[in-house]
């Protein structure tokens, strides 16, 4: 069974997709959402196989939703849009398909066929997430789970990132958020202007580094302004020094 969710801020537009999806025997509609934020939460919670995502929405646009997803675990995305000439470039790069409103049933079925194809051959997935990130630029903002909802934090507020199995701890001055993402993917999203890897499972905000103390075998002890102490692995010293001009 293919699990699909539908995201559009206009009810009639959702209705049309849900009716047509409902008539397919191999597809189950797992939910419908009217804005980007609740869609993002639902994707994290329900891990659908495919998301029909409207581009123009209040709060987070469809592209912004895509940019916040994790590349490896992202559902397939079918963008639905009225008219977005410049966004089409991004769709071509990574989305499974896109539907231009208004579209007819035949066009809709073609999009579904492509979804089935991609699901059957996951190795051919090209990521719409990467394309969306490229399109909207390096993300300065990160959505993190906080309580029952999501909170938007500025990437400058992040002091450091620590990987823990399939999760990443995102540390800010007064909070620590747990994100179900890989460190690699998160760094890719946040861009390498601000963050630098210090060992296999940690990265720090360069602006937050307070000092370094040499340890054995070329490792260092790295102190952040907040007082937190981390280990800088020998393998990553050269990158850090070149980035900090040291």
């Amino acid at each position, binding site marked *: 069974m293919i699990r699909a969710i539908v995201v559009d*801020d*206009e009810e009639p*537009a959702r209705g*049309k997709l849900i*009716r047509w999806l409902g008539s397919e025997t191999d597809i189950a509609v797992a939910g419908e959402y009217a804005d980007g934020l609740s869609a993002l939460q639902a994707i994290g919670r329900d891990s659908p196989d495919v998301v029909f995502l409207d581009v123009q929405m*209040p709060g987070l646009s469809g592209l912004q939703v895509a940019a916040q997803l994790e590349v490896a675990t992202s559902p397939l995305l079918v963008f639905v849009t*009225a008219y977005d000439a410049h966004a089409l470039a991004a769709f071509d790069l990574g989305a499974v398909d896109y539907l231009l*409103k208004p*579209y007819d049933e035949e066009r809709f079925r073609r999009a579904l066929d492509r979804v089935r194809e991609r699901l059957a051959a996951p190795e051919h997935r090209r990521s719409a997430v990467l394309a969306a990130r490229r399109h909207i630029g390096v993300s300065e903002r990160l959505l993190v789970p906080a309580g029952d909802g999501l909170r938007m934090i500025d990437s400058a507020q992040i002091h450091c990132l620590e990987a823990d199995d399939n999760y990443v701890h995102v540390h800010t001055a007064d909070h620590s958020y747990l994100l179900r993402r890989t460190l690699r993917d998160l760094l890719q999203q946040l861009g390498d202007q601000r963050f630098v890897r210090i060992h296999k499972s940690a990265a720090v905000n360069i602006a937050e580094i307070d000092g370094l103390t040499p340890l054995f075998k070329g490792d260092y002890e790295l102190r952040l302004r907040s007082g937190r102490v981390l280990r800088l692995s020998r393998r990553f010293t050269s990158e850090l020094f070149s980035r900090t001009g040291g």
Partner: protein
Amino acid sequence: MADARPSWSRSPLVPLAALWGTLWTLVAIIESAYTIHDPAIPRWQPLTLILSVTVTIAVWLTFELRSARYLRFPLEPPRAWFLHHLRWLPIVAGGYVVIIFGARHAVFAMAGGNYRHLPWAALVPFELVKAAIFYCLWLGLVFGTLSMLKTREQGATLALVQKALVEAQLAQLQAQLRPHFLFNTLNTVSSLMQVDVARADRVLTRLGDLLRASLGAGSTMTVPLEQELNLLRLYAEIMQERFSGRVQVDWQIADGASGIPVPAMILQPILENAFRYGIEQTTGVESIRVAATVGRGQRMVSTVLTVHIYNSGSTLRDGWRDGIGLTNCRGRLRALYGDAAGLDLSNYPEGGVIASISLPVHGAVA
């Protein structure tokens, strides 16, 4: 220094006054021409006759231009204009005779000459009639010049107003038929027609009406408020179908407001902004209110129509600027009403944004 009254030297009547002064001088020269070649008469005598006329006329014309009274009194109706300025005829003609002949007698007396002319009983009526005829001719020329200038100016204003209208129509077409609006509406129809043919039909008809209205609005500059409101209702109904349940629209139109002429398509961009910022970018249930009132203007002298378009769900940020739609509205209001009309946007105390457009009920300046 910004002075509201133009300096007299920049009066449009300056060339005319110069011409008129020259003409009088020529008349005076011709009148005294026969004496110039008479060896028995000293040269200063005809010269005094001529200069007395030239100087008097020059001084008079200077005062005429300084007073700017011709520019202040309305040209329409012409009868009133002429009657108004003919009131000065006795003073102008009488003053002319007294000053000219007073001056001549004074100069002749001082120089020891004897100024001979017709007996006063014949001279005074003759000179009075002459001065009166010349004053009437002067008035005719002034009226003609001013009328010509006014026609030219009106032409320029009209061209300006028309240009603003054309620009507004273009912006309107671009804005109202923004591709997003059009395609999303079509998608709404495409969805509705599978479940509720009558509703789909209604949306499609509204869209048709809206398209027709925006394409056809070019032929008129002002329309009754009711007609403009109908356009807004079409737009609002389509948006309510699209954002079903997310927006409540209220209309409060004062009695007597419906027939007041307003510039065509002046309200449409404002309602569109209300939807765009208040509804399309929010997730809750929001409201839009359109209210029209008729009342006294600030100076309590004229009647003013005010239309408020309120939307919840958005706030004007510090440093916000007019978009194309608002810039255009302001431009058209200024072209049509000068300073008598206005468009203000402000944050509503209880949240949301209120746009208020006010314009004089009695007519545009152009």
